[in-house]
């Protein structure tokens, strides 16, 4: 360490290291003893601690407004892309990924019912920079990492998914059944639970006979947030449909260009009402 005329004294270094949890137990005890005996050191320490707390608080107040600002969808898309790249980079030999063999089932009746109720009245075809709620960004990231993982996609298999939904129902104080998509040719692969800053989200992964994957993500709908009727967004090659229903927010995420997101959403919404 070079010596400069304004170099802080040892006490400053020790107080800072104590404040930041950098001292071992003996050194920390020595600082505590000094704080009891030396009012000047105690005053200095109080100032350092107060300024540190104020800075953390100021940053915490600036962040939510910025995170909700325009331009953050691009950040979310870059973030999802980076998750994907960092997850797949070590296995550059290629994914054991079955490609599309059969088209996705098209449930025209369900799509027609959807139109008739005007349920997707607010639907928009988002570009790559479409703004999406936080839970939708989480859903995209979760799908890219796990939905497309053919070795270990789920932490709870189809059978244990019952337990996940029992847990989710308790957590929400509201009975939630496992959404089924057999009617659309999709079998349940399994479930994952992710922790996010907004709370837990549950990701249910489905697969059709051609091995094409889809994730349905469910999160608690924030009380203050307006209900989402139905929105569509594309983030890079990932296609998303999302909406809120009762106490939950839903997002359907897939990379399959053929998937009928609206029809699937409709099927799920009808099932959710019954």
């Amino acid at each position, binding site marked *: *360490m*070079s010596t*400069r005329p*304004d*170099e*802080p004294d040892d006490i*400053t270094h020790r107080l*800072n*290291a104590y404040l*930041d949890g*950098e001292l071992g137990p003996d050194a920390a005890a020595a600082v505590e003893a000094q704080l009891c005996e030396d009012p000047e050191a105690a005053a*200095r320490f109080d*100032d*350092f601690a107060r*300024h*540190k*707390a*104020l*800075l*953390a*608080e*100021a*940053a*915490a*107040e*600036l*962040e939510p*407004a*910025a*995170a909700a*600002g325009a*331009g*953050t969808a*691009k*950040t979310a898309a*870059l*973030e999802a*892309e*980076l*998750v994907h*790249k*960092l*997850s*797949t*980079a*070590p*296995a550059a030999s290629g*994914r054991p990924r079955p490609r599309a063999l059969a088209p996705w089932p098209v449930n025209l009746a369900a799509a027609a019912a959807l139109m008739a109720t005007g349920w997707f009245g607010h639907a928009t075809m988002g570009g790559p920079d479409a703004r999406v709620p936080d839970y939708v*960004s*989480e859903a995209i*990231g979760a799908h*890219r*990492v*796990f939905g497309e*993982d053919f*070795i*270990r996609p789920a932490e709870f298999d189809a059978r244990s998914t019952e337990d996940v939904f029992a847990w989710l129902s308790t957590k929400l104080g509201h009975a939630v059944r496992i959404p089924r998509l057999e009617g659309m040719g999709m079998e349940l692969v399994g479930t994952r639970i*992710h922790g*996010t*800053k907004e709370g837990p989200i549950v990701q249910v992964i489905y697969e059709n006979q051609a091995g094409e994957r889809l994730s349905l993500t469910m999160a608690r709908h924030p009380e203050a947030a307006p209900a989402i009727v139905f929105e569509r967004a594309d983030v890079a090659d990932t296609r998303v449909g999302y909406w809120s229903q009762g106490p939950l927010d839903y997002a359907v995420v897939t990379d399959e260009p053929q998937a009928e997101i609206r029809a699937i959403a409709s099927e799920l919404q009808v099932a959710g009402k019954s």
Partner: protein
Amino acid sequence: MTVDPDLADRLHDHVAGLRRYALVLTRDRDRAEDLVQECLTKALAAAETWKPGTDLRVWLFRILHNTHVSELRKQRVRQTAALSPPDEAVDTDPARRIELQQVLDALDQLPEAQRRPIVMVAVEGMSYAEAAKALDVPLGTLYSRLGRGREALRRLLDGAGKPRLRLVV
């Protein structure tokens, strides 16, 4: 393919951290978001340099730091900071808001080299070793800059009610 099951969650937290750090340093929402995006773009291009099992946060902050340094070099002059904690933060009492504003303003008067470690440690809760790695400086230099920066903040903030002290660096 081995997938780290926490990666998406961790990266999301780190992006929020990068944004907080960039916001406090730039005090400009658009510039902060641009910095975060440039950092992520560079991280994508350099993804193979990250070794799974090593500290992802330090790796990202290092990229952000280098991006910020080269941006400042291009600009030469730091623009006047403006961003304040939002007014709609209803649960913050006015006196507290003034304090938050004062500490951000005081931070703005410090040299970059002192601001960065202060923000990394205070806002992101980084250890000294992590901050030193992210800033690419020896641990002793980090100690010294953090100490000088915090002393300077104290002088600036203590002087708020008295005739304003000018920071000489």
